[in-house]
């Protein structure tokens, strides 16, 4: 599986004022089994790019293909989302939430529940399968959302600031846990994040985006095998990378924010 993004531009028409170009001329290749993180200042179009990859938004120009086949709309077996706000259905139990995509695809009840249960086991939530989302913590809800995406057995997982709403500690803990799960499942993942640590710790490649309009300004390769252990965050190479990223995002805004 290879996803090719070729000179993708997305321009929004606005009711008032000039149209806004959210992203311009993005070129990117995502290869099988790779973990790519997208980081950049707010409004740099990283989430827009992710939505284009999943067929939720249509580029104004350029094209996105998976193994040569163009993306024309959402298709969860090709690209499954984990959204920032967990967005579980409060009227469905945890296992039924995890089976949501399968139900839409017309999979029979017993079968889809079995698949969903397997994914819940993977994210460590099989013991709350019959609970309702409101009874779960934010971190648990997001793990259900991960299970829901995994249940589609997608070629690529698209995660939009998946742990942004969690507190620092659970964010790190669940992040490491999910990173391991996804690595072991050999998933191809593109993740949008605000967190430098997260961007480096999870990924094989970190893409830094700049804004006005959104484009990719730098690419870093994180040269360490996955799954990684927490102490990877204390290594010198992690620190160097982090400092470089920090400088790029915070220290030299002229490079990230176009004139």
């Amino acid at each position, binding site marked *: 599986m290879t996803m090719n993004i070729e000179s993708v531009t997305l321009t929004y028409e606005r009711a008032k004022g000039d149209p806004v170009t959210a992203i311009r001329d993005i070129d990117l290749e995502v290869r099988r089994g790779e973990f790519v993180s997208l980081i950049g200042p707010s409004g740099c179009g990283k989430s827009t790019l992710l939505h284009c990859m999943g067929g*939720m938004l249509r580029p104004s120009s350029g094209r996105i293909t998976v193994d040569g086949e163009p993306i024309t709309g*959402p298709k*969860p077996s090709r690209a*499954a*989302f984990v959204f920032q*706000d967990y*967005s579980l259905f*409060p*009227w469905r139990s945890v296992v039924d939430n995890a089976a949501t995509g399968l139900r839409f695809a017309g999979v029979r009840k017993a079968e889809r529940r079995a698949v969903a249960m397997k994914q819940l086991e993977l994210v460590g939530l099989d013991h709350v399968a019959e609970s309702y989302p*409101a009874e779960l913590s934010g971190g648990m809800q997001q793990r259900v959302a991960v299970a829901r995406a995994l249940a589609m057995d997608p070629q690529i997982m698209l995660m939009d600031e998946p742990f942004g709403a969690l507190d620092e500690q659970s964010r790190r803990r669940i992040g490491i846990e999910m990173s391991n799960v996804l690595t072991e499942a050999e998933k191809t993942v593109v993740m949008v994040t605000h967190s430098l640590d997260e961007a480096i710790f999870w990924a094989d490649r970190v893409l830094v985006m700049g804004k006005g309009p959104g484009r990719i300004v730098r690419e870093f390769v994180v040269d360490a095998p996955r799954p990684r252990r927490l102490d990877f965050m204390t290594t010198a190479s992690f620190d160097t990378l982090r400092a470089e990223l920090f400088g790029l995002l915070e220290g030299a805004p002229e490079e990230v924010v176009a004139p």
Partner: protein
Amino acid sequence: MKHKIAVWCLRILGLIGLFGAWAYATGPGGVSPILVPKMSVVWEQFKLLVTSSHTWSSAGITAVELLAAFAIALVAGVVVGFICGRTPFRAEVAEPLIAWGYLVPLVLFYPLFILWFGVGMQSKIAYGALSGFFPIAFNSLRGFRAIDQRYLKVARAFGASGSQTDWQVKMPAALPMVLSGVRIGAALCMITVILAEMLASTRGLGYELARASQTLQVAEAFALILILLVFVAIVQYAINHFGKERYRTDA
């Protein structure tokens, strides 16, 4: 637990107060039995009424009218709310109209219903259905309109078809709002049907009550009110039981 006991004690105390005042008024209070009959007489009447088949058939008629009116109001209200809540444009057009229908005293139309449907059951059903329709349509409209965009986004991302989005996402998402409309609508149906029977009809509990008080059968009227109170309590219980939300929203 202690709290619960206190609550029940006070409730019972309230009832004792009410019946005590009644007993005092008809006894030492010297209120005329034409205005307020003695409790014992009402009780005798009550026993007489609940053993008569006429009362049961009257109650049956009222119940059928109520059920028919409610069924029409429910289906029409949810369908109209769903259709009008589909686009912001439709909602903008329909919302003030439905709100207006909700506020208008629909009893104004009752003489017309009698003209169109006669004094039989149909006019009660029409009037009851109309008054139950507006709160159900209004709340359904708002429920369908206010569906959290996140749910629709998930539906789209996970490949839901149009009808799957309608039935598996929009319906359950709007359900709490729809149900609150249904509860109000059912209560209004009940009030209207009984009122309509009292105003002009030939049968039903409301009719019996109006006849009894107009012919100064005050004890019978009191007994009928007692029966109606039980009837209302049963309906209320049914509504609350069926209308209970099955899940908590993720607030």
